[in-house]
């Protein structure tokens, strides 16, 4: 039977990989191609690669770096960052990428999701939703790398993404991202209860128990890992690594 997919979520920043904490303070953690070669050896289920400044810098996806990782990536690969047209998506898929993720476009030009799904199928389209609690403790969808609220509620927004044709949701908790404190299972459950498409959860994973809870409590379909797969431990040095398959099978089956 299918098991829950577990995947590194890599952030591309300033021509290298970085790790942020609550979307701030990017720290350099290594070379993307090198990291992907290691994840290949570890046989990770999938990989997410996000160019976190493409939109802010108003530039197209960096096809050169996408090509250099796609040629080394022998598991499904999702690219996100700065995509504004179907033509760009076509170019990215021809390089050898399977899925594209939309964040800025999901908020401002959701019809792009519909267009891409029509041409390439829903399975190729991920809507990336960044969520933060506002000062009254209410969940809101944020934009521009977590700096500005959209005023929209994540449940309504996730449903809209499903209706527009997204095949999956990448749900990131900004408050948990980079903290090692565990996923926001309350948020996850609210979303998984509201949509029928798979939800990949992101932000907060610090140990295997966190992964187990996101699946058992939150009903997550996919688990994205950030800090855990680029650092030895919290507060320690860089180490590209991945949980052992046998360990994952124990908690996810």
């Amino acid at each position, binding site marked *: 039977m*299918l098991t829950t997919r577990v995947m590194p979520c890599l952030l591309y920043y300033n021509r290298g990989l970085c790790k942020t904490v609550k979307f701030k303070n990017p720290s350099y953690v290594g070379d993307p191609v090198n990291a992907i070669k290691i994840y*290949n050896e570890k046989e990770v289920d999938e990989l997410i690669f996000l160019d976190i400044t493409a939109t802010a810098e108003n530039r197209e996806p960096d096809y050169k770096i996408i090509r250099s990782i796609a040629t080394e990536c*022998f598991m499904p690969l999702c690219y996100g960052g700065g995509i504004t047209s179907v033509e760009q998506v076509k170019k990215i898929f021809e390089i050898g990428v399977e899925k594209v993720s939309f964040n800025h476009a999901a908020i401002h030009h959701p019809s792009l999701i519909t267009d891409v799904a029509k041409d390439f199928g829903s399975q190729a389209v991920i809507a990336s939703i960044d969520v933060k609690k506002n000062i009254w403790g209410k969940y809101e969808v944020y934009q521009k790398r977590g700096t500005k609220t959209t005023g929209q509620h994540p449940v309504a927004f996730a449903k809209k993404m499903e209706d527009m044709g997204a095949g999956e949701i990448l749900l990131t908790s900004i408050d948990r991202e980079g903290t090692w404190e565990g996923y926001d299972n309350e948020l996850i459950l609210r979303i998984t209860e509201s949509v029928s498409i798979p939800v990949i959860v992101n932000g907060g994973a610090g140990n295997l128990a966190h992964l187990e809870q996101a699946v058992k409590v939150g009903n997550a379909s996919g688990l994205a890992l950030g800090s855990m797969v680029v650092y030895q431990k919290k507060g320690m040095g860089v180490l590209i690594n991945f949980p052992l398959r046998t360990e994952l099978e124990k908690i996810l089956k």
Partner: protein
Amino acid sequence: MIAIVNYGLGNIGSIQNMLKKVGYSDCILASTREELERADKIILPGVGAFDAGMQKIEQSGLLDTLNKIALVDKKPLLGICLGMQLLTKGSEEGKLPGLGWIDAFTNRFQFNNEKAGLKVPHMGWNEITISKQHALVADIPLPARFYFVHSYYVKCTHQEDELMSCHYGIDFSCAVQHENIMGVQFHAEKSHKFGMQLLKNFASA
């Protein structure tokens, strides 16, 4: 030389990337009859809807050549994902007839019991069972798992055409073979060492 049929559907880049990785750089993306004729082996990729796939093949002007290569020349041919479904006689997804090179039909996954928690598409890694010995499935490390993304599955008329099976709510054929025609439902090009071995087998057989 291996030709990957470039008819406008499918992640042709990934297939080429993996063939290179396993040592077969002698592979081209074929969009003309001449290119197809020159190849010793053919890979038919494909993602998306069944009718769109058949239409694209027709529009590419390669259908006659493909029929000749598959049925007369009997060159080894591997369909991947939708490429495998197109080998069948037709699909519940569409109205157009398929290529019909395998005596099989493509059906939709239908799960009445929502509680079973089985979502469609069947997406992710799943373990397979080898149904019969064949060069394409030789030396694949077991237990083997492959990456799937599909909402429709192939049902063979003749059990002996099934090469591998998989279970998702029901048992279905996830790899088929009849004479020179082969097909895999999963994305071998994105299935780590398991897919690498399979593509290596196809390339070297």
